[in-house]
């Protein structure tokens, strides 16, 4: 391990921990860490009720990472901001920080008996490229084999957070044999990994049964034990309705429930153990269209933000299940996050002043502001597959509140088809976008504010922001080798986007679970909150 890596790791640890502790206290973040090992029961079936069912177990969607994490292992492990070894025992960076050499463990076998080695890493790379839609944002360009258990990872840009990426659930390893010979269907339903669990059966619409990998002996150092998982079986069920999940936990049919209804969150904290994890990356944020329409005017953007009481909305709608987030670029768990929660407090008078100044002085019959005969109208299409029902409710309150200052907000729900087909994604289609992106690195700025992607409009740029200078500044921050300077540069950028009100945060995408009191040891991965059932065990009584 070379010097610069340690420094980076320490710096990011410090920053992230501060951010987390300041912003969002999570009671019992490590559920029952103190569980009495003497009462532990070996074996048993853990039933977890989750919300969404992805098409395949593995892929680029965070819903898939939740599942992949159970059957795959990763090169490194992300432990509270610190990078720890896992399948790679040791690594070093080249001076230009664009090549990282990983030394691999030699005792790891896939559940189909295939060996994990440099060839296996190389065999997985094309799979990642094909299967992870946003792969190019990681700046990875490929692996080369140095010897049977040594590989070199090549990057197009230096990326200090590449370790977070490699640890984040998507970049797991499948057996080379299965990649070469299994049918697409097998690869989709039951990919073969080295992880603590293997898929036994996926009943679509119902759930997945995982069986313990009895040969497992290569847990990361931040796990609580090594060797096979404590429980013998993991039943991962898909239950779309929150109330039903809550009922299942109450009745004892489930041991762990994803996202209980917000109205029951206080109860959940009382009656059960709970875990919360604020996802890294971008929070649920409002991105204003700065390419055309009324929000090209900074005053109008700011007025919109002053007009909404974000803190109170989030408190009322989410009832503690998700924290308010002021920053529109980075969530509070993302490395190098800057807290801007106190900017833009709820101030209707200020909003009105700003709008008047921007020339929206006329009023129509319904009280909406007009300028040159045009109503101050903002369309906000949102994908129902991505914004949960409570997010949609928050939008309704926003709609009601901006009406008070004369802004007409059209909240337009899109079906899954429309959403995934990229409907209403052109500058002419909308004035405001609403959405999040789970991403373990501050280079999210590069992804969401970049005008062009390979010469074509960048679909991730929801604000249609186009400013070569800022783009260069983002890349400069990204390339900055000194952690302190890098933090400063990213802080400046975050502050700039906040001041400009190009995007403002509303709430953080939060992964909450409620856990039965008889299940201990369950923990959430500190990279993107993935549940780790490997350490979970039942206790007597």
């Amino acid at each position, binding site marked *: 391990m070379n010097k610069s890596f340690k420094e980076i790791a320490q710096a990011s640890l410090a920053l992230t921990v501060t951010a987390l502790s300041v912003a969002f206290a999570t009671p019992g973040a490590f559920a029952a860490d103190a569980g009495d090992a003497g009462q532990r029961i070996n074996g048993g079936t853990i039933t977890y009720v989750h919300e969404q069912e992805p098409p395949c177990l593995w892929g680029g969607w965070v819903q898939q990472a939740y599942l992949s994490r159970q059957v795959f292992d990763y090169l490194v492990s992300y432990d509270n901001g610190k990078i720890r070894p896992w399948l790679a025992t040791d690594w070093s960076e080249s001076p230009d920080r664009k090549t990282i050499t990983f030394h691999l463990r030699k005792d790891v076998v896939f559940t189909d008996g295939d060996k994990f080695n440099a060839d296996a890493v190389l065999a997985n790379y094309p799979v990642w490229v094909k299967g992870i839609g946003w792969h190019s944002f990681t700046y990875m360009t490929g692996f080369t084999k140095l010897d049977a258990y040594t590989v070199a990872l090549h990057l197009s840009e230096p990326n200090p957070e590449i370790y977070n990426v490699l640890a984040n659930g998507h970049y797991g390893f499948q057996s080379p044999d299965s990649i070469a010979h299994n049918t697409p269907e097998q690869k989709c339903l039951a990919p073969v990994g080295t992880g603590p669990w293997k898929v036994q059966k996926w009943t679509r619409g119902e759930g997945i049964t995982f069986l313990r990998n009895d040969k497992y002996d290569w847990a990361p150092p931040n796990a609580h034990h090594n060797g096979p998982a404590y429980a013998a079986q993991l039943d991962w069920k898909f239950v779309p309705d929150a109330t039903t999940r809550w009922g299942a936990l109450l009745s004892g049919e489930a041991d762990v429930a994803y996202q209980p209804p917000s109205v029951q969150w206080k109860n959940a904290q009382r009656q059960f153990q709970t875990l919360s994890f604020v996802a890294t990356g971008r929070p649920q944020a409002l991105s204003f269209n700065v390419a055309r329409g009324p929000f090209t005017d900074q005053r109008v953007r700011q007025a919109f933000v002053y007009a909404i009481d974000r803190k109170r909305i989030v408190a009322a709608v989410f009832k503690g299940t998700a924290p308010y987030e002021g920053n529109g670029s980075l969530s509070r768990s993302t490395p190098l996050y800057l807290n801007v929660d106190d900017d833009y407090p709820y101030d209707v008078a200020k909003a009105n002043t700003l709008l008047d100044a921007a020339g929206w002085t006329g009023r129509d019959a319904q009280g909406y502001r007009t300028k040159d005969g045009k109503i101050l109208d903002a369309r906000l299409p949102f994908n129902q597959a991505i914004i949960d029902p409570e997010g949609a*409710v928050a939008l309704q309150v926003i709609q009601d*509140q901006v009406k008070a200052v004369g802004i007409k907000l059209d909240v337009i*729900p899109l*079906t899954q088809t*429309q959403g995934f087909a990229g409907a209403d994604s052109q500058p002419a289609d909308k004035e405001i976008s609403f959405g999040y992106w789970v991403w373990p690195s501050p280079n999210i700025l590069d992804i969401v504010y970049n005008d062009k992607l390979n010469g074509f409009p960048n679909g991730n740029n929801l604000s249609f922001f186009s400013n070569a200078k800022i783009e260069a500044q983002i890349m400069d921050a990204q390339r900055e080798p000194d952690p302190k300077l890098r933090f400063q540069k990213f802080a400046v950028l975050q502050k700039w986007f906040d001041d400009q009100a190009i995007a403002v945060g509303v709430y953080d995408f939060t992964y909450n679970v409620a856990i039965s009191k008889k299940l201990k040891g369950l923990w959430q991965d500190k990279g993107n909150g993935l549940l780790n059932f490997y350490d979970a065990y039942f206790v007597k009584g």
Partner: protein
Amino acid sequence: MTASTTEFGRPQADQKTVPRSRIGVPRLPVSIWLSGLVVLFFAIAAIDPSLLSTHSAFETDLLNTLSPPSVGHLLGTDDIGRDLYSRIVWGTRQSLLIGLGAMAVALFGALVLGFTAALGPKWIAGPLHRLLEILLPFPILLLALLFVALLGPSATSLLISVGIGTTAGYARLIRAQALKVRKSGYVEAALALGHSERTIFRQHIAPNAFRPLVALVTLGIGQSVVWASGLSFLGLGVAPPSPEWGALLEAGKASITVAWWLEIFPGIAIVLVALSFTQIGRYVQDRSEGNLQ
């Protein structure tokens, strides 16, 4: 052929006149009165909701969320403090519009398809009849899903999708009815008198084939409201702030463990409308059948 002297079992066969009360209003069963009142209430709500509502349907009140039914909020408030009663009242227009509109769409399609399939020239009637056979096994919901996917989730696409989803069924009924009327004595009598086919269609077949459908139409309005709310429930319905009833149910689901009223009252509204239209429809049906006997 049976002689029509079957008196037994129908001793009041010649007593078909509607009993009338003194002021000349037909004496209607209590259930019809009640149904009428319900329809009237919702009709007013649809025409001018402000006459019946107590609050704004859209104004949020974050200090007063999920409060149970009380004098201030007759049916309680929702998760962002909106008055449920007023939301139901304001949602009436859209819900009923979807019900009526879907029925209108279904009826229009069914009339064109049904009559053409029954009476059109052979080269079109045959294939059309087969087309109806193809559409029938399509689950209504699948057609609806397709249309919502095509048009996006909105009241219009709900209306069109439910309408088109139910068209084939009605078209088949109209076809059967038209064929039946075409074989009736009065059509033959008109033919024997020397009327043209067109006149006979206009004077006899069209109105008489449609007659028994009047009841079905009212039944169908209620059913359409239920179907549309089902689609809203699947998230394929009207935009969120809109208080369409299906959307209310969908929204209430999340809080049902602490706020039963959010799920119960919109459901009752839907059932009441479906029930009232059905009652009236069945009454009309009974009357019209009585007249046809």
